């Protein structure tokens, strides 16, 4: 049985639940669903000078969605909309099968999701937290 997408690194990320819990005084809150499987993420952000200063999320979803949200929870602070868009684009490209290297050190763990490439129906599980993040930033910085 192929179990590569459930490797220990992904399970550890999911279990770490970095960033879990909603912010009380967030500048923005968004909720996104994955209509295929019912995954849901709610995400709250605080921003200062165009950079994230605090982030919290609540995931009701699969292990991949939890792991992806956990990466965001651990790495997104102090990042700008533009830089996060670039990370999102890079992750999307990797899942499509494009060669991707030179992850910023904070985001290196996203390379663990490479085996998900082969399972197209699961791409949206990994990308849902990033879509929520970008949607939240778009609300705060509509001109970006």
């Amino acid at each position, binding site marked *: *049985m*192929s*179990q590569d*997408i*459930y490797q220990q690194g992904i*399970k550890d990320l999911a279990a770490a639940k970095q960033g879990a819990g909603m912010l009380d005084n967030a500048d923005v809150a968004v909720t996104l669903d994955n209509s*295929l*499987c*019912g*995954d*849901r993420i709610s995400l709250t952000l605080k921003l200062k000078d165009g950079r994230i200063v605090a982030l919290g999320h609540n995931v*009701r*979803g*699969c*292990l*991949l*969605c939890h792991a992806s949200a956990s990466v965001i929870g651990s790495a997104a602070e102090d990042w700008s909309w533009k830089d996060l868009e670039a990370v999102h684009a890079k992750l999307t490209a990797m899942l499509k099968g494009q060669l991707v290297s030179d992850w910023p050190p904070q985001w290196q763990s996203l390379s663990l999701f490479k085996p998900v490439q082969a*399972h197209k129906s*699961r791409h949206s*599980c990994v990308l849902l937290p990033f879509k929520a993040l970008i949607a939240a930033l778009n609300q705060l910085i509509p001109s970006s």
Partner: protein
Amino acid sequence: MLFDNTDIRSQFPLLEREINGFPLCYLDNASTTPMPREVLTAMLEFETCTRANVSRASHFLAASATDAYEGARESVSRYLNVNNANEVIFTSGTTAAINLLAHGLEQTLKAGDRVVITLAEHHSNFVPWQLLRDRTGVELKTLPVLANGCIDMDELDALVTDRCKLLAVTHASNVTGAITEVDKVVTAARKVGAEVFLDGAQAVAHGPVDLQELGVDYYAFSGHKCFGPTGIGVFWGRQKLLEKLSLFMGGGGMVEQVTLVENRYAPGKSRYEAGTPPIAQAVTLGVALEWMMTLPWDEVKTYEKRLTQRLLDQLKTVPGLRIIGPHSSEERLPLFSFDIDGIHPHDICHLLDQQGIALRGGHHCAQPLMDALDLMATSRASLTMFNNENDLDALVSGLNRAIEILL
């Protein structure tokens, strides 16, 4: 004819496939059933030898296609045990049928009238009524479900008052498998003069339906859930009630005469079949239902109940697994939603797929029910008469393996 599971399995070419190096174990029949060879062959034969439009031209092929199409209507009426094939309307599926009804009642129902549905409904029997409510001011009330997933019939009297004009209820839940006590629904409706619509999408695959015995006013189902093709469904209604429905879709085929001033519309079922219908699909659905009517249903039902009880017992041995729905084989279809502590259904279904086992994970288009059950999703195994004990063993073994990997 005696029921022979091995013979039945051999009639389904899809079951000969390997998925991820394993023989296919197909347990997603509540989503879509495979088609037996006889039905597949009939579809190809129709499209190869008889393809033509219906109820229009007079040439040989057109007449043959029309005969086949109308013959399918007869097959549907026999499967539903109704006497009048003109009460059978072909649609693209259950969803289209329910939308037809909701639009058809729009001129009849008025603000303050009440439509009662249940929390166990598929979105397709939720959203059309919500849209009707929003368009007309009709009040929409929802019967609750019990912890075992059955509809709480004790609430009927409170909700089915004189204001209630329609109860729109599932025949069997696509999440819990619970079979609705239709007699109680019909009795409550008759007390106040309300009509009853039954969503047969799930029930129809488990044997011919006796609408005369059920006593409902409208019924709907989809072909692809009862061994027929996608893109075809049935809406049935009592003739007198059909005549009162407002027209839903306009176009060719549903008119007798069109002028610049006013139109004269076709009588009967044709009023509701605007445009070229899904002809091959309807004809093939007729073949599928005829195929089903050759089966010895007393034996099939006994067999499905035996599988149901066996799987209920087996699932109880899986660590952390909770069955969502009735625990008795008598109250339910062979359809099993379950939740496993600490594991999302999507992960379960992925790992089972890697072993060639096809399940569905998700909210099953029943989010209000999921919310009531405080679940985001469930895994669902849905069986039919071609499944066997090997399938059940593969499922349980696969679940244990998946749990080992994920926890």
